[in-house]
């Protein structure tokens, strides 16, 4: 169920449920953390992909290790699928908390695959359920005269047109145990696989695809694999025997899906490896550390010349160390990076300034999460834009890039090093939790698209053997860069204002020259970088109805455009990619013909809107924000854009959904 409630108060919502369908299926699975939910969602996603679908999955989870609620959405479509859905067609679950959280979100008609084994559960006993939601649900049930129990819930769902299927997992597991001749508890984990098998079967996914997916997702030893295969067989058989095929079926594939299935952390990690990452220091933090852990596990990289190399990954004592250590490594000519999230980035701003002042090519991958403070560590937000652009005292050049989807992450992660080395400055690659937990099918990355630029390096011989003018004043602002340890490249560096030779200088004139030199590098970057890297335009490029957004909203934006086009509404979307230096000139041309102008952001205040206003002198006519910690979906965005199109929208529109 999707709601946009401007006057949403006290956890009640008052507007009607609105649905829009496109050619895809949306599948959701919910359950406690630690019960393997994410792994089986991957299994389902892979089975879809192997059935010729493109998939886009997202994962929502609490900042907790075991027990609290988590869920995964898998959307599959034979065509491009850029976004998750807030209103799944099918819900798979084994317990009542998931029913409470998701039943109201289901489409009509929707399908629930649940367990027949659980006895009646009193909803008041669900301790992990948020008080607000518990209260809402019980009130809903009471109004309908239904008991506040699991069966009351299912009854309510049925009254809303949802089909419920209770599966006798216990019996199926017993059968499995018997077949394998082992004790029942040995096969308990197979319940997950059975659930996927049953729901897949009902959706028309072939057993072959499921089996192939199984091998990839649960490789394991032969006996485990065998158990899983059998579980699958039993469950598929059961489904075939028990249920008619549903009206809802996986759409017909248009051919085989090729390419990769991965999430943004992996994509970024691959981009870094492709770019020749040599050193990454990090301090664990959600959601950034997944990338570093992946890199640590893949730190042996074959080279095309038959040799082997690979980055040194180091978990360090804190983010102050992470950023400064990466800086130290970068000084030697190593492609160096660190990756972090909100609180860690706050701690890095002093080091960032040093990198700016010393013109150090350093890449910081910043995975935004819900703030402020510790905030919502495992939820999404685009709340760190201002901090990425302005964080740190004083004024120094930096670049900020934001990728829009899993595919862009790869190329941008690699590109970031080129920018860093070409302009000799820190580059912040801005991502968010929504992207990291988005698992998508993407075309296989083309290494040949990468053209590596290491920037201007100092070559000894120009100067007498003594010191090198590391900060030589040049027209571009870029000085040939000597490396620490380079023979004949001896030089000084300092965070203090300095002369061309890195000597402390408080001379007012030298100060001005250095401030200007550093600033010129950004002008240079703004001139050289191609428009396509700065911003991308989608939809009807001549439309006046213009939507601007950035980062992970790209998926929702594309989805919404498709829906608008379907309704015959002509619109175009601008995805801002290079956020700093701000692509003002390129945007100017677009703004000139824009109206209404809409900004879409996943934060409270509309940080990009403020940035556009500061840079262009014109704010957007409508600001659409979402700040409940969950990503914007295409369907929700579509709805609000439609309202804007109809002139029914206010200047500030908040996207809300109490069931996600």
């Amino acid at each position, binding site marked *: 169920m999707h709601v946009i409630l401007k006057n949403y108060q006290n956890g009640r919502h008052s507007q009607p449920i609105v649905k829009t369908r496109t050619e895809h299926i949306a599948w959701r699975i919910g359950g406690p953390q630690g019960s393997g939910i994410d792994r089986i969602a991957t299994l389902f996603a892979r089975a879809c992909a192997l059935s010729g679908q493109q998939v886009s999955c997202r994962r929502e989870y609490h900042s907790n290790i075991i027990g609290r609620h988590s869920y995964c959405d898998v959307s599959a479509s034979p065509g491009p699928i850029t976004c998750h859905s807030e209103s799944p067609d099918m819900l798979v679950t084994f317990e009542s908390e998931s029913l409470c959280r998701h039943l109201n979100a289901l489409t009509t008609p929707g399908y629930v695959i649940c367990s027949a084994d659980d006895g009646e559960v009193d909803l008041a006993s669900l301790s992990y359920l948020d008080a607000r939601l518990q209260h809402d649900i019980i009130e809903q049930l009471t109004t309908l005269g239904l008991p506040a129990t699991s069966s009351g819930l299912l009854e309510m769902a049925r009254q809303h047109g949802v089909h419920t299927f209770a599966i006798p997992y216990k019996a199926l597991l017993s059968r499995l145990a018997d077949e394998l001749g082992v004790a029942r508890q040995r096969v308990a984990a197979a319940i997950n696989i059975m659930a996927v098998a049953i729901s897949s079967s009902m959706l028309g996914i072939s057993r072959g695809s499921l089996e192939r997916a199984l091998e990839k997702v649960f490789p394991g030893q032969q006996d485990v694999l065998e158990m899983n295969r059998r579980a699958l067989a039993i469950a598929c058989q059961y489904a075939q025997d028990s249920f008619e095929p549903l009206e809802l079926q996986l759409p017909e594939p248009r051919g085989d899906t090729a390419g990769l299935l991965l999430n943004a952390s992996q994509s970024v990690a691959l981009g870094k490896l492709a770019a020749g990452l040599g050193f990454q220091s990090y301090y664990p933090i959600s959601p950034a550390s997944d990338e570093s852990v992946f890199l640590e596990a893949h730190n042996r990289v074959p080279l*095309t010349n038959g040799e*082997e190399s690979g980055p040194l990954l180091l978990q360090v004592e804190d983010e102050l160390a992470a950023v400064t250590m990466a800086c130290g490594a*970068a000084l030697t000519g190593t492609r*160096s990076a660190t990756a972090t999230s909100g609180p860690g980035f706050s701690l890095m701003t002093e080091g960032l300034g040093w990198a700016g002042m010393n013109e150090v090519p350093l890449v910081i991958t910043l995975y935004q999460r819900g703030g402020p403070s510790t905030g919502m560590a495992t939820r999404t937000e685009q709340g760190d834009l201002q901090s990425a652009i302005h964080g740190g005292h004083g004024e120094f050049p930096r670049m900020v890039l934001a990728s829009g989807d899993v595919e862009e992450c790869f190329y941008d992660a690699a590109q970031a090093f080129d920018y860093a080395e070409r302009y000799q400055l820190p580059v912040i690659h801005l991502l968010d939790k929504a992207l990291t937990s988005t698992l998508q099918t993407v075309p296989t990355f083309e290494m040949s698209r990468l053209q590596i630029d290491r920037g201007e390096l100092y070559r000894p011989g120009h100067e007498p053997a003594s010191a090198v003018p590391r900060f030589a004043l040049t027209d571009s602002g870029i000085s040939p860069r000597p490396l620490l340890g380079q023979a004949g490249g001896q030089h000084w560096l300092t965070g203090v204002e300095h002369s061309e030779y890195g000597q402390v200088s408080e001379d007012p004139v030298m100060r001005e020259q250095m401030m200007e030199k550093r600033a010129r590098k950004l002008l240079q970057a703004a001139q050289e970088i191609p428009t396509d890297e700065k911003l991308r335009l989608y939809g009807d490029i001549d439309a006046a109805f213009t939507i601007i957004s950035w980062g992970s909203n790209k998926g929702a934006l594309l989805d919404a455009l498709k829906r608008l086009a379907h309704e015959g509404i002509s619109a175009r979307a601008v995805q801002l990619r290079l956020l700093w230096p701000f692509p003002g000139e390129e945007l100017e041309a677009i703004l000139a013909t824009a109206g209404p102008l809409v900004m879409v952001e996943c934060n409270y205040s509309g940080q990009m809107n403020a940035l556009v206003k500061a840079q262009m002198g014109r704010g957007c006519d409508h600001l659409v924000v979402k700040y409940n910690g969950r990503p914007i979906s295409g369907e929700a965005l579509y709805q609000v854009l439609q309202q804007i199109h109809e002139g029914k929208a206010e200047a500030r529109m908040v996207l809300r959904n109490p069931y996600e």
Partner: protein
Amino acid sequence: MATEQSHSAFTAKDFQSQQINDWCAGCGDHGILRGLERALAALGRSPDEVAVFGGIGCSGKTPYYLNSYGVHTLHGRLLPFATGAKLANPDLTVIAVGGDGDGLSIGAGHFVNVGRRNLDLTYILFNNGVYGLTKGQASPTLRQGEQTRSMPQSNIQGHINPIMLALSAGFTWVGRGYAYDVKSLSQLIQQAIEHPGIAYLDVLQPCPVYNDLHDKAWYGERIYSLRAEGHDPVISDSSDEQGSQEKRVQCLLKAQEWDEQIPVGVFLQDLTQPLFLEQITRRQPSYARMPPARIAVADAAGRPLSDLSQLFTELEVS
């Protein structure tokens, strides 16, 4: 241990930079600088094989005054900066120099954690009991109750014993020198640099401007040499468990001395701990041949050298 200076191709002068020195006259820092120049010359490495990282404070200006790669970092962060450079380019001789405020107050977390990595790095702490550059506040080595010239009140906080801290953090070479005894100091610096693991050298550094309690006279009465006293600091593979334990205890006892007599020299050298770079190489064999700074990223045409095909296969849909 300190090799003779004669066979080096460099003299102390080769390590002197032309930058203007703005330390106060009589400051102990001058002595440490001289000690560094001499030690570097004796090592026989050329200036472009040496990188010196400074913290922020009077002490932190040292890199400007040395002819070598010189990096003036951030207050309290010199150890991570230095560590990053060493890990990326292990061929560099990396020396970190900073104040007692820098290393024991704002940088204490790195002090402790750098001890966990037995990296071939030398850390020299300029121990003057005060924050020189910010005009004489108490540093963490000033004792409770002491009040130096520019403090409005006496010190109510206790002190940190840096020798103890280094020992408990896992530094495998721990020594102390005295800024006004340049000869012994330069030998200690040389030993610290030659030590294959992580070395901590505490230098008693009079600050005649702000620390009027611990001056030449005060130190002169107290300082004695561990070596002269026969202290043997080395734990090696041939030491037995009990012998090593005794050495550690001895060390801890020596570390407590202060009010009446102050030992200088090498407190401990533990040669039995695995070296960090060897650990890295064990899990990542390419590191030895191709440490980060030597990784070839692209060919002449800008084509990336990384071959990710295997990884792509792992992540393939089908």
